[in-house]
């Protein structure tokens, strides 16, 4: 395909080009449309029509030059450059934490962090998604054997992009703070941290390729044209109760049974096999909420007083940075009754410190939070998480 730049000298020539524009069979793609003689007209012409168009222009005495001789060559070079750029990014690590990344880019960065901070960071695979993508967890540990640990996950709902983005920033923060920040250092000297940056990789890829607003997994539902299960209605906690749908087409479809989703099952198995998880923290967006159990029932958990106080302390830490306010409370009283949620499961399983965060904003941009807010969101969220982690460190049970 060629791209021509046509220099029109008068209105008459502009009209000729507009005539050309109307000939649909030529499949002309005007990059600058003919409108006024003052502006050049740039047009991409499919290979098989190039000669015909040039003949038309020449016969009308219309001046043109070749802007791009062969578009394919330009596109191939661009692809090469992008791949090279990515390579460079990988070796010098100019990973930009302030933009949203593809799954591949995030996964590459997990490897990079594990390599750059190999003394404390290792990458584990805890399972595979429905479409067979690996589920990678970063383990932050200074040694010991099966130390008490903190679990943190993000992106269980794929459209909540600020959560995966914050998680990778937090990974870097934890790794680089060890040995520099007294609190993180003492935390990792006693406990391990497990961080699942992308809990729902199939959904995340789908939000990049097809539907930015996709929430669920991508599992097929037998007998239905509708795809996917809401992974945060699929946990074994009040499963089948109010606040989850039994319809596969619903965005809050609970699934055919608890743990039907491999993404959920993989985490459950990991937690159970580990046996020493002390806190279960999960990131969502949006609404700016900090919640503890329960969601499947509207009664307070036994540890209500402690969880509420800790939640409020964490919210104060978050607010201290940029003034962002989080509302604290049980899931049921703060948003709605919802069954099959992850922190209800973890709490009933015995993990006392179970919290769910809903990050920025409160609806102005919602899911499509501007990338410029990623780092501020990650920074303030980290302060809240740190407050909770410090409490967990200092209150073994």
């Amino acid at each position: 395909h060629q791209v021509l730049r046509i220099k029109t000298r008068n209105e008459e020539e502009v009209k000729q080009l507009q005539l050309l524009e109307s000939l649909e069979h030529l499949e002309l793609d005007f990059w600058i449309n003919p409108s006024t003689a003052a502006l050049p007209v740039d047009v991409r012409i499919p290979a098989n029509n190039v000669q015909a168009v040039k003949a038309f222009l020449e016969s009308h005495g219309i001046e043109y030059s070749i802007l791009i001789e062969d578009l394919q060559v330009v596109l191939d070079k661009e692809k090469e450059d992008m791949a090279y750029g990515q390579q460079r990014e990988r070796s010098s690590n100019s990973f930009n934490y302030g933009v949203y990344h593809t799954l591949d880019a995030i996964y590459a960065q997990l490897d990079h962090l594990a390599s750059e901070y190999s003394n404390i960071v290792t990458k584990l695979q805890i399972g595979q998604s429905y479409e067979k993508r690996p589920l990678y967890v970063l383990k932050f540990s200074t040694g010991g054997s099966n130390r008490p640990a903190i679990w943190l996950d993000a992106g269980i709902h794929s459209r909540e992009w600020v959560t995966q983005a914050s998680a990778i920033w937090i990974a870097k923060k934890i790794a680089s703070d060890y040995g520099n920040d007294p609190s993180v250092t003492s935390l990792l000297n006693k406990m391990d941290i497990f961080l699942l940056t992308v809990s729902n990789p199939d959904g995340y890829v789908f939000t990049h390729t097809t539907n930015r607003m996709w929430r669920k997994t991508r599992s097929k539902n037998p007998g239905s044209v509708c795809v996917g299960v809401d992974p945060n209605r699929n946990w074994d906690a009040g499963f089948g109760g109010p606040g989850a749908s039994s319809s596969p087409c619903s965005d809050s479809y609970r699934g055919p049974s608890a743990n039907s989703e491999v993404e959920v099952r993989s985490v459950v198995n990991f937690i159970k096999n580990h046996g020493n998880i002390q806190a279960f923290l999960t990131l969502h967006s949006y609404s700016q909420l900090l919640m503890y159990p329960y969601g499947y029932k509207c009664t307070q958990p036994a540890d209500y007083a402690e969880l509420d106080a800790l939640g409020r302390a964490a919210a104060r830490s978050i607010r201290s940075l940029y003034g962002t306010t989080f509302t604290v409370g049980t899931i049921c009283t703060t948003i709605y009754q919802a069954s099959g949620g992850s922190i209800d499961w973890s709490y009933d399983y015995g993990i006392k410190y179970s919290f769910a965060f809903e990050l920025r904003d409160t609806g102005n941009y919602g899911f499509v939070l501007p990338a410029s807010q990623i780092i501020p969101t990650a920074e303030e969220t980290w302060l809240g998480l740190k407050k909770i982690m410090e409490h967990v460190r200092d209150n073994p049970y």
Partner: protein
Amino acid sequence: DIDDVGHKYYLELELEDVLDKDSTVNCTAEVLYHLGNKNIAPDVQFTLEGEPKNTDEADNIFYNRIKNLEKELVAENIPDSHGNVPPEMEPIRLLAWVASGYVIWQNSTENTKLQLAQIKHVKQVKRSDEYLEFDYMILLHDTVSQEIIPWQMTVLWHPQHGVQVTQDSRQPKHASG
């Protein structure tokens, strides 16, 4: 609770200018949710204590820019996937936000919470009078069901006459994605 009528809420609010966080106006409001019939929008009465910032200059700049476009404005995905909004599209986004507020009000009950999620498509419609008209396809996020609901709305605007939604209709969702 008002027997046989519905539930009334008395609210004291602080309104904050989205474009200028330091500019706030206090507001008192009464909202009445009607019993039973889901097809009646809640009644809203409100009083502003003071006045919001004057936006005449910015309104007129935007109005004239659109009026002077050679071709009718067309745009998609505002914000885009990364939350970006080209500066010249920001007023288009804000207009949709205001207009969607009307649509949301008309479709709200005590148990709903709808928010504007994204503008999928907007097309300016040529008019011979002084109004600007935009045909929007928006996505509403239903925070309770978590559904994303496509909605069409036709919006009229004029700097002195304000915003009007002349037509709106809920659109069917696509099945697989």
